[in-house]
């Protein structure tokens, strides 16, 4: 008897907190900014496939489709898994391959500019998955995982509500330029936040199993790779303490990001470390696209008010130039 009321109150409070966390409408500014940047990243990533489209995405190429499908078959099964899908598994002709590819680039460009955002967000996600499955395994890496993650959540909310041609178009038609707070925008942002926490947690857990990460020497392995190097950091060879600090800081940050990023006092530190680590990956290891994609995902932890403070002045000038009205 004495337990029922407290338990009921606790469950009630849990449900209220859950509701607040997921279903409070928010300004879609953060989601819109992520759309603008992630759309650009999707466009660039897939534009690069054009340099050897047949080789990486075509039916034959470096790893033919039937060989990739063979790998995607579960042990003991006769057929490949139906859930591992791609439009490129069915395209046999060169002209159709290029037609789909060019259409995909158009979709990514529209998503970047925020044109028909809701529709292009869904198409962009489906296309991103298609490309990713075609090159997995073979030529995929973390960038594909980050791209698909961002594309997946962008299609859940009104990612074209701000900083988009859709909004410019609404202004031109004389519709109200007020952007309503949106529950689905909050859901999308929360999912990016949680997914990011899961990524870093498991990345950290995998690292602590490695002797060089435990010992504090792993960062040397990153800077000493000739194939990855884009900026000579070999001077670190005579600074083992610095290598150790960087190594342990990386592991600490990844393991505890999922806890510390939620607190308003530690969040700036976690985001600053994200900039340092992903910026370092981009600058010193040549993975500019991957580092940038992860930083775009980290933007999910910015308040809409902060995003608007930075971006609205520029957006206002653009809308003034295009339609003679400044968006608010």
């Amino acid at each position, binding site marked *: 008897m004495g337990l029922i009321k407290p338990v009921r109150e606790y469950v009630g409070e849990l449900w209220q907190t859950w509701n607040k966390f997921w279903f409070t409408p928010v300004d879609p500014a953060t989601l819109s900014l992520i759309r603008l940047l992630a759309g650009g990243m999707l466009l660039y990533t897939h534009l690069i496939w054009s340099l050897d489209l047949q080789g990486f995405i075509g039916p034959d190429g470096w790893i033919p489709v039937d060989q990739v499908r063979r790998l995607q078959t579960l042990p003991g099964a006769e057929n490949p898994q139906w859930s591992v899908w791609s439009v490129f598994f069915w395209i046999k002709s060169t002209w159709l391959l290029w037609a789909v590819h060019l259409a995909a680039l158009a979709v990514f460009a529209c998503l970047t500019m925020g044109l028909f955002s809701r529709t292009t967000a869904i198409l962009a996600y489906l296309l991103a998955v298609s490309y990713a499955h075609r090159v997995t395994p073979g030529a995929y890496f973390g960038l594909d995982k980050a791209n698909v*993650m961002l594309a997946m959540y962008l299609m859940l909310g009104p990612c074209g509500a701000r900083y988009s041609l859709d909004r410019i178009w609404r202004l031109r038609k004389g519709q109200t330029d007020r952007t309503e707070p949106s529950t689905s925008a909050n859901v999308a942002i929360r999912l990016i936040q949680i997914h990011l926490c899961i990524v870093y947690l498991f990345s950290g857990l995998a690292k602590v199993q490695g002797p060089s990460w435990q010992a504090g020497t792993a960062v040397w392995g990153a800077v000493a790779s000739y194939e990855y190097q884009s900026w000579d950091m070999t001077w670190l060879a005579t600074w083992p303490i610095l290598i150790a600090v960087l190594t342990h800081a990386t592991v600490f940050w990844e393991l505890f990001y999922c806890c510390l990023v939620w607190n308003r006092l530690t969040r700036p530190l976690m985001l600053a470390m994200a900039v340092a680590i992903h910026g370092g990956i981009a600058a010193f290891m040549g993975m500019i696209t991957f580092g940038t994609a992860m930083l775009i995902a980290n933007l999910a932890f910015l308040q809409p008010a902060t995003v608007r403070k930075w971006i609205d002045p520029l957006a206002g000038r653009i809308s003034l130039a295009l339609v003679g009205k400044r968006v608010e």
Partner: protein
Amino acid sequence: MAKQRSSSKSDAEPGKAAGRTATARGASKSAAPWPPWARWLASGLLLLHVVAVFAAPWANQTSPRVLPPDYAPRVAPEVLRPADPPREEDFRSPPLIGALMSLLRPYLNATYTNHGYDFFTPDPAGSYLIGYDVYDAQGQIVTQGQYPDLDDQWPRLFYHRHMMLAAQIDEFGLNWPNMIGRELLERHNAERVHLLFGYHRLPLPEEVAEGTALNARWLYETVREFDIRAGDRDFSASSPGDRVPIRVPGVTP
């Protein structure tokens, strides 16, 4: 920075808080909250999705190795004893993770979220390279090069794709020399291609401090070499290597 939500100082329903917030931000009307049934439905789907996204790296980073269906241990003549056959433990999956994955795998596959996030783990390692010499019918070199090669593959992301190709291609039991060789032969209308699969190890800090360059010749070793001729299209046999293939994305117990 404040939390990612409308500022609300009460425990009011999200809709009421949204109304105050929307009004405070100058909206002409308050945003309508989702009705309870929508929030219940969404909560169930969200929970399922988050569990799935959590389970995938958990499974990927704890599951044992999975071998391709036609895997057979190779007996190398130069080795004094045959390669160890896979043990039964290698095929057993962790009970809870295995059960979760058997339910969630189709969803994870379809959404391209069935992977781990083990970047540069367990430890950063050296790089694999594929060198090639392509010959015409007269035995003259038509072209030569390697993957990856920053001088040949630009921009950086294109180079990185080739680096991933060289890094991943030997991991899954594919007859990749025939695939790569066939592609090169067709591109250059050639008769023969010589492939060299190499490994470029990382120098130690002490070696670099003493003056070793990152691309010093002695850091490179040849793992295997192949000669592929026009007409070699047998992709069925496993790669003539002695590495047990590691986990294949999307294929976990």
